């Protein structure tokens, strides 16, 4: 056994253990537990002893026996030195150590002498650490958003670290922020407007994009190449440079503060992407099917309606979902064009709420949860379709 590789193994593994235990401690603090010390050095040395014991025991005991007994031992030690902590916390520590020792499975005195073992150890633990790190960094803000919406202003001011939910309260108490934003701040109206604009954008965009994409994919006409390259260039053009001219023209035409005006702009900005995605799909449909349609005496309209659309429903629905998400999330144009609370979209309404410094933060977060949930729901539910579309370059941001 090389001394170098075992040192690296011990240091890296206990560093990893320290990280997850610290995250667990921080998360528990946010549930109202009163820790003020991460005790990094203590945990780190415990980790070194744990890993060392693990390697030394080796194959002498059955793996399951080994990890359970080690986890019991170390969580008991942990409990002994932190008597104040509740049982669920210690149980969490137990599970973490169990997970950790299970990950150590492939290391023993033999494997630590392999080639490049130190690099492999570093890669393995960086992978583990990376997964924990990315999951934590990404999910934590969403978690805070959700729990804040269930707290009250006073509770948050008294202890900004306590996000524990009090389930002894009635449901109406717990969901109070949601009731308030619906009753006082008129969020049901904004949800309706946002849905109307987004769904309207989807319908109008598809109406314009399907024929255009078909023409680009199948028909020969002068300026076709120019059109398909300019689609991509227009796609790169920033919304911020469109804002001032559109604002002035829309003011003079009376299109500001109207859902119709917003619909036009959203449609125009999503059209290039929609055409681009659809035409590449249309090209993959065998041309013979259309020839059969022409033989049957169909005109172009009939071909699109009866052959192309039924065959490309998956692509059309993924474009529709995208356009919906873009329109639902859109903020810049709704900020510029809407200044009458009667025609706000959800995003604009939340921004308007935050403009008043008096607005309690839980209302803001309740609004944020409402605007985020539909998008995340659509994304999680239709992930497979959406991810393939994302890589073909659809969502701009």
């Amino acid at each position, binding site marked *: 056994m090389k001394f170098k590789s075992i040192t690296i193994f011990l240091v890296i593994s206990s560093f990893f253990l320290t990280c997850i235990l610290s995250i667990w401690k921080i998360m528990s603090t946010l549930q109202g537990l009163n820790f003020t010390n991460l005790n990094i050095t203590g945990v780190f040395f415990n980790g070194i002893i744990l890993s060392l014991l693990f390697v030394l025991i080796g194959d002498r005991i059955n793996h399951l026996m080994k990890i359970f007994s080690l986890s019991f031992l170390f969580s008991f030690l942990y409990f002994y030195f932190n008597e104040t902590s509740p049982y669920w916390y210690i149980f969490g520590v137990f599970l973490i150590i169990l997970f950790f020792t299970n990950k150590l499975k492939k290391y023993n005195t033999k494997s630590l002498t392999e*080639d*490049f073992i130190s690099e492999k150890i570093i890669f393995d633990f960086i992978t583990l650490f990376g997964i924990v790190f990315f999951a934590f960094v990404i999910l934590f803000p969403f978690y805070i958003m959700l729990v804040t919406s269930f707290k009250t202003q006073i509770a948050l001011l008294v202890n900004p670290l306590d996000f524990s939910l009090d389930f002894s309260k009635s449901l109406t108490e717990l969901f109070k922020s949601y009731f308030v934003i619906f009753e006082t701040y008129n969020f049901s109206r904004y949800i309706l407007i946002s849905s109307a604009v987004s769904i309207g954008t989807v319908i109008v965009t598809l109406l314009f994009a399907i024929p255009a994409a078909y023409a680009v994919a199948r028909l020969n006409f002068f300026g076709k190449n120019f059109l398909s390259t300019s689609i991509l260039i227009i796609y*790169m053009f920033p919304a911020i440079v469109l*804002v001032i001219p559109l604002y002035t023209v829309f003011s003079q035409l009376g299109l500001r503060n109207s859902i119709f005006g917003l619909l036009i702009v959203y449609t125009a900005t999503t059209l290039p992407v929609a055409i681009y995605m659809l035409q590449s799909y249309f090209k993959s449909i065998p041309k013979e099917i259309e020839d059969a349609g022409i033989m049957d005496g169909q005109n*172009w309209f009939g071909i699109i309606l009866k052959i192309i659309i039924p065959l490309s429903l998956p692509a059309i629905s993924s474009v529709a979902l995208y356009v919906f998400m873009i329109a639902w999330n859109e903020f810049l144009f709704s900020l510029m064009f809407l200044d009458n609370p009667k025609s706000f979209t959800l995003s604009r309404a939340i921004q308007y709420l935050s403009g008043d410094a008096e607005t309690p933060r839980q209302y803001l*977060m309740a609004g944020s949860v409402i605007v985020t949930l539909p998008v995340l729901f659509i994304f999680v539910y239709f992930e497979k379709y959406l991810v393939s579309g994302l890589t073909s370059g659809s969502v701009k941001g």
Partner: protein
Amino acid sequence: MSNILSKLEKRTAYTLVLPAVLLVFAIVLFPVFANIWISFKDIELKDIRIPEPRAKKIVKSISDDGSELKIVYKLRNSSLIQEIRNVKFQDKFPKNISILNLDSRCNFKSKKIICDFGNWDAKYKENFEIILKNIDGEKIKKEIIKSQKPILSGKSDNPLLTANFTLKNFKKVFYENNFIDLLLTTFYFTFFGTVGAIIFGILAAQLVNQNIQGRSYMRGILLFPYVGPVVALAYTWTLLLDPNSGTLNAVLVNFNIIESPINLLGQKYITISVLGFDFKLRLALTTVIFFEIWRYFPLAFLFILARLQAIPKSLYEAAEVDGASPVQKFVHITLPQITAIISILFMIRFIWNFNKFEDIFLLTGGASGTRTLPINVYQQGFAVSDIGMGSAVSIVIVMLLLAFMIIYFKLIGKKANEI
């Protein structure tokens, strides 16, 4: 025969394409050119309304029996800078009414008063009075008089269409606007945001590409920041980073990692000493860049992951046989395979970050040293309400973007086309 068919095909193609093309031209391309026009004009937000003649009608009774009424029309030109030509005025009255003091500019015929006020200068104001008398001597109903609104018309120029041009806006952009600072901030934000997003994207893709449990869940979760609405995410982060009761500061203070809360989004500079040297870090800008990385590394991740999954496994197996270390495998197999996609990503993200408005606007509003060019468009155009100036900044953005695209296609374009 084929000629007729191809003609028919062309005609169909144009009818299919035209609606979409027209809409995109009107909403996307037209504004880009309209910006050039507006940027040469000295025009403010309040001027964009077309001037119109306005009248406010005030009715007072001046005799005891109510048979005589005085009407004051407060006439004005709605514009402060433009004249209105050939203003016509018209109002209706009930039966049996005569006007006692008919102005020389007016005519009274069959219950109607019609006046010709000629031209009104900018800011024009006049109190135009008439006194009504009921011929029967009965009381005139005030409500009826009040409910009748006067009709005004006049000709005026659309201030957007007049031919007064000036270079003032561009002078202001380059000389009075801290232009260098603005440009540097924009480049810091764009460059570090782009590079950071790509680095984190590579790391995440490398992670997910390994055989780990729950890999597809991980891929879904990693994309959350990218698909979530920017408003919700930005406000959540402001709440997390808030110095007074934000979670992050509270946790750090609680575990004695820092002594007092740091205002991550509101403090322009922070001094960090490393090895005895003091560095001044632009704190708020750095925080905003980190938010940017957090929100957009998923896109880089997804593209790189797709590329990684397309690398043939045999390459790695061959390297394994040759006894290559994990680092060697990454440097000699993985990296060369993903350079092309990285250069494309760099371009796309660079352009989009360069134009990023919402994220900075929602986090800091452009305060504490986070004012970038797009933020400046908004500030000039809507906060200071000098839309000519805002347009001039937009033009600068478009010019810089075109320059990037040209440089990019000269340097990397050919390589990128190869994949």
